[in-house]
């Protein structure tokens, strides 16, 4: 399995073999740049590279 973060520019910005790490990285990016929530997405692909889930966007943390 592969977990890759892509920007809406079409370019990969990170890639992981662990889903939790990938989701945490996505959340960190959006925490730093809440306006980027729609611009960054996680794609999950199988070992052959076929997408099985995505795009997955992070939800910016609520501001209290």
């Amino acid at each position: 399995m592969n977990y890759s973060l892509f920007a809406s520019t079409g370019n990969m910005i990170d890639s992981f073999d662990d889903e939790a790490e990938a989701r945490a990285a996505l959340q960190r990016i959006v925490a730093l740049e809440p306006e980027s929530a729609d611009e960054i997405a996680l794609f999950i692909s199988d070992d052959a590279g076929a997408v099985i889930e995505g795009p997955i966007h992070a939800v910016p943390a609520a501001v209290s």
Partner: protein
Amino acid sequence: MGRGSVPVTDTIRDRSGSGVSASDLDLLARHIAEPVDLFRIVKGATRGAPGVLGSLRSNYERDATPRGVERESVLLHLGLSMFVTFDAAADRALRWPALGTHIALVRLEPGCGFHVAETGALVHRTVWGRPLQLLACIADILPVGAT
């Protein structure tokens, strides 16, 4: 090695098949010494469409803040994502239309200083090249739903 093939065996990969991760920043950028066909998601239907040239610019060229592994690897920030098959590119674009409406067949020719590395999923490549030279290498552009 025939057209369109990039050897897998000599590249740096971890055991999962993921060529890049936050803890694995080494990659092998291969010089394009013979023609290689790759597929790039683009925002435009013709080579002359402004969005197509823009689609051949790296995040660095777009003045995008480095994110993720781009912070630790300038190579990734300077690179372009491409795919080894039309379907691999189109599947992602169909799922996320913001990526682009069309898929360009990019025939990377020797003599332009292009480099390519296996990064991310098995079907993904990172390519380094100058946008106008990459534009000249576009052999065809098809809508994402063309298969």
